[in-house]
Structures are given as C-alpha cells and as structure tokens.
C-alpha cells in the first residue's frame, strides 16, 4: 500500500508571530520556517506503517513556494521514499487556500493511487482545519479526522479520534483520508545519515497547471490584528469580596 502525506511549510512553532503594521497579514520576512508540526506527525505515522510492513511506499507532497523543497527534504530525511513539490506560489505571502490545495491533492491522488492519505489535522499558520475534509469530499473517500491512534486491519483503517469529552473509534474502508492529531505519535529526528541519504531521493517539481487547477484566492483578507493584550487582574482581600465580584461584576454566580 502506498501512503501519501501532504506537508506544509509554515512559520516555525517557536517563532513569535508579528502582525504587519498595515494589517495585511503577518510578517514573514526572515522568519524561520519549518514543517507544520501536525504534518510531521503524519509523516512519522506513515513511516511507522512502512516499518511495520503495512505500507510499501511513502510519498510526501507539498504545495507552496520553491523553498518548500526544504520541507520535503525533511520528510525524506525522516524516511519518506520520494517527494512531489507543486510550485504554486511566487512568494511566501501568497497563501494557497484549502480548496485549491485539496483540488491539487485530488489530482495527485488520482495519479499516484495511494491506499491511504495521512495529513496533519490543520496547519499552524492559518488553522483552517479544512484540507483533509475537503479532499475526502472531492474524492468521495471516507475520512477519519483528529486521529490519536491508527491501525490498519485488512482493507480498513481503525482510527481513534480525539473528540470533545473523550475518544471515539471509527472504522473506515480504504482508501481513506486520516488527519493526525497531536498525540498520534512523537515524530523522530532526522538523523545525519538519513539527511545525507535524503539528498539522493527523488523530488519531482510540478506546477498547478500540470494538474489543471486554478489556485487563485477565493477569500479576501479584510484585516489582521494582534490578539488583545491581557488586562491586569485585581487582588481581592477575602473570599467575600471574591464572591461578590463573581456575582455582581462578572455575573457568573
């Protein structure tokens, strides 16, 4: 079984994001970029399936700027077998929206015929949480999102999902889309020998035109702003004052 893993190049999770002065977006100049952490979990899961002998090949695909090659090399260094880059943006400020990404992935899926797609549940930059679901809809495949455990049983995937208030286990027929949540696994580091080997693994470069997909934006960013600063708290003298404030000011009692 072939496993396809879409990966996105995003602002590194350690970077403190700053909003541009004109509110048109966030400042991406000279900012460290890395693989979306949920995608890293997806890559790790795919590699584990290969190590268990369940998957035969792991293909990583990224849609974005030329530099997303670095992200794909990371996936290859972790253990993916080959990579496809769809160069769909001129510069980092141009965000490819989930629907366009899903359409491109659908085209890749039709070409590659994977038995399973494992994606991150969402990218940490825009937090859309939409691509996996849209891809499932476009393909007409079953989906199991927010996976915290994945098992392949015959021609089915058994997925434990993290849902509000607990865990839900679903069984979906393959081929299917699974999206990875934080606790699915702990991704490995790319070792130096594997980083060097990754240099020699195939990385194919395509364009949206190769798949006949229009990636022009359908949404307009109206404004971007910093989250409101947290206001200073107040000290209360005793429990009675606290209860009074909760009752009369906060209105929660």
């Amino acid at each position, binding site marked *: 079984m072939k496993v396809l893993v879409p990966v996105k190049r995003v602002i590194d999770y350690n970077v403190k994001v700053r909003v541009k002065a004109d509110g048109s977006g966030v400042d991406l100049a000279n900012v460290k970029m890395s693989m979306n952490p949920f995608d890293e979990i997806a890559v790790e899961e795919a590699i584990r399936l290969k190590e268990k002998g369940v998957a035969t090949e792991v293909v990583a695909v990224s849609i974005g700027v030329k530099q997303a090659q670095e992200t794909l090399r990371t996936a290859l260094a972790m253990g993916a077998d080959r990579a496809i880059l769809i160069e769909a943006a001129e510069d980092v400020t141009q965000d490819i929206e989930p629907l366009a990404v899903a359409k491109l992935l659908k085209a890749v899926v039709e070409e590659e015929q994977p038995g399973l797609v494992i994606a991150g549940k969402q990218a940490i930059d825009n937090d859309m949480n939409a691509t996996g679901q849209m891809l499932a809809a476009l393909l007409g495949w079953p989906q199991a999102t927010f996976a915290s455990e994945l098992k392949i049983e015959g021609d089915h995937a058994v997925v434990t999902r993290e849902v509000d208030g607990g865990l839900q286990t679903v069984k979906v027929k393959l081929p299917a889309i699974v999206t990875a949540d934080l606790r699915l696994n702990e991704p490995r*580091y790319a*070792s*130096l020998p594997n980083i060097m080997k990754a240099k020699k693994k195939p990385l194919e470069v395509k364009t949206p035109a190769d798949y006949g997909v229009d990636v022009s934006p359908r949404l307009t960013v109206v404004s971007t702003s910093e989250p409101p600063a947290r206001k200073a708290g107040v000290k209360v003298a005793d429990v009675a004052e606290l209860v009074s404030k909760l009752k009369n000011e906060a209105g929660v009692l």
Partner: protein
Amino acid sequence: MKNPFETDERRAFRESVARFVARDIAPYADEWDEAGEVPWELHLKAGALGLFGFGIEEKWGGLGFDDCFMRAAASQELGGCGASGVFAALGARNISVGPIAALGSDEIRAAVLPEVLSGRESSALAVTEPSGGSDVANLRTRARRDGGDYVLDGEKTFITGGMKSRWFVVAARTGGPGLGGISLFLVEAGAPGFSRAAMTRKMGWWASDQATLRFEGVRVPARHMLGPQDRGFLAIMHNFNYERLNMVAACVGMARRCWRDALDWARQRSTFGKPLIERQVIRHKFAEMSARIDAVESYLHMICWQANEGAMPVPEVSKAKFLATKTLEFVASECMQAMGGAGYMRGNAVERTWREVKVMAIGGGSEEILRDLAARQMGL
C-alpha cells in the same frame, strides 16, 4: 546572521540536533547535573542521530564523510543545552575515536568503533597525569615491552568519560625523554592492573564523569599500540585540533544560551518602573556580549571552512579557543550581573555556565598554553 557556508544538509542537521537538545536534554539538564550523570539512553539517542561518526568510514559505524561545520553545529547545540557537562559526557568519545580510527588495526576498529559510535559503549582519551597536564611531552606513564605485550605503569587524571568508558586511548612513554618517546595504546577497562576512581568534587561539568586511572603492570598486547612506536605525540597534537574546535563551538552555544536566558529575564524584570532591558547600562551589556559572541562564531566558521578545504589552521584553532573562553567568561559574568541574585542561584544556565567557564579555559589546552602555541605557530 546569514552564514555564507550554509547548505540544506547543514541546516537540516543543526535543526535535528537543536530539537534533540530541546526535547531530550534541556528539560532534564538541571536534574542530570545535580544527579551527576546522564542516563545511558542519551548516548544511544545521540549515536542514532549521527553525532559521533565524523570522518570515520561507514564500515566501522561512522558517517563515511566529514564536515567541520556539522561537527561544530553539534557541539554548539549541545553546549547550549544548559549544562555543558552533558556535552562533556557525550563528547568524551569524540576525542578518542579519532586516533582509534586513524591508527588502529582493522581488528581494533571492528571491535571498538561500531560500539562506541552507536553510543552502546564509550571511549576516552587518557593523556593528562597528576604530574602535569599541559606538558604532554614529559608524561611519565611507562610502557615497557615484554614479549608480545607492553606493560603499562602510571597514572592518568582528569580523564573525562573515565568512569563510564570501556576503552581508553592511553599515552605512555616507550622511548626516551621528551616528545619523541611517546606511544598510544588501546586499553580496555577491567584489564588486570587497571583501576579507576571518580573525581566528584568539582566546580562544574557535574553531569559528566571524570576519573583518575591507575595502571599497575597492565599488560596490553603489542597489536593494541595505535600507530608507530614513539610517534604518539604528533597524533595527540593532531587530535587536539578537533577537541579545541568542538570546545570553541560549545563555548558559542553556552554563551548564546546565557545571553538568551539573561535577556528573557531583563525583559520581564522591572526596576524603578521600567523593564531592565530599557536601562542603558543593561542594554549596552547585551549589545557588547552579542558582538563578541558573533565575532567568535564568525571566526569559527572561517576555521571550519579552512579545515574542510584541507589542512587544519592550527594557529587559528588555538587563538579561537582562548578567544572563545575569554568571551564566555565575559558573557557568563555580564549575564549574571544582569540577572542579579536570580542568576546567582543554582538551577539556572547562567550560574552553571559561570562555574563551567574554567573547565573550558583550562581543559583541552589552557589559555596560556594556546597563546604560546599560537605565537610559535605564527613564527613570532
């Protein structure tokens, strides 16, 4: 600052090591330092990451290539973990596998290197003696030929990795006085006549093991001599270059870590109604420290470049090492001044680094010896 020598592989490797440090070391650095050791599992993880095999063939478990920038990146990231004793605990083998790979027979390489480079075992370099450290040429441990063996008698001290290593590269006198009479031997811990004692009451590097080793009639098969008889001195000197280079890189990592931690403090700490960092006397400290650290790092990159090109630039390695330790001394001190009492308390990287400056400034060639070596190498 951008590095003109950056490649995708170097960046990827540095990021891997940085993540390894952030996830598997930094959260435990205080605890391990207080405990006086790192869990052995860490050696295995570092081995799997590829930290140990530079310049050693793949058939012996090495990486099959060398890159000074990657060596430096690994040391820099480990140096920044918050307890440089972890760098010492893992790195002890790095200063001993070079001679084993370069001078050992295939039998020795096959027996030792895969175990040591994978992190399953460790090895250590045993040169320094109670009678002298810097004066390598006058070391006193003797190796006397007896049939098919050499018999070693003497004592070594301040040996990093000394308690936990299985293999030792031991310098001993086989010939006359001076640098022309020294040979290197591979000695296995547990050989009859070999004993060791832990040196625990030390100023820093608590997470690592240092030992005094005693050799009382230890028989070493002649085939365990590394390289030709009486030619060990040059091998020791050659080996020092990478040790020093790694220490320069570790100093940069330690200094950057102190700078970051102290800066976090200076941003949060408010004095007389303003964050500390807005006080000129404090912000100028940070600018000065940053400039000095950048300078050492840039120097390191130039040395790495030249070492990759061919010959190791010995005078520059020597100069970079004392420059790095003087910079670290300055940075650790200034960071503690910025942090005040909070910096003085145990359990933070600045306090620990301040104590660990001296092991960096004395070990692997003292500042005084290195200035002299540089002066001689430059033909002054």
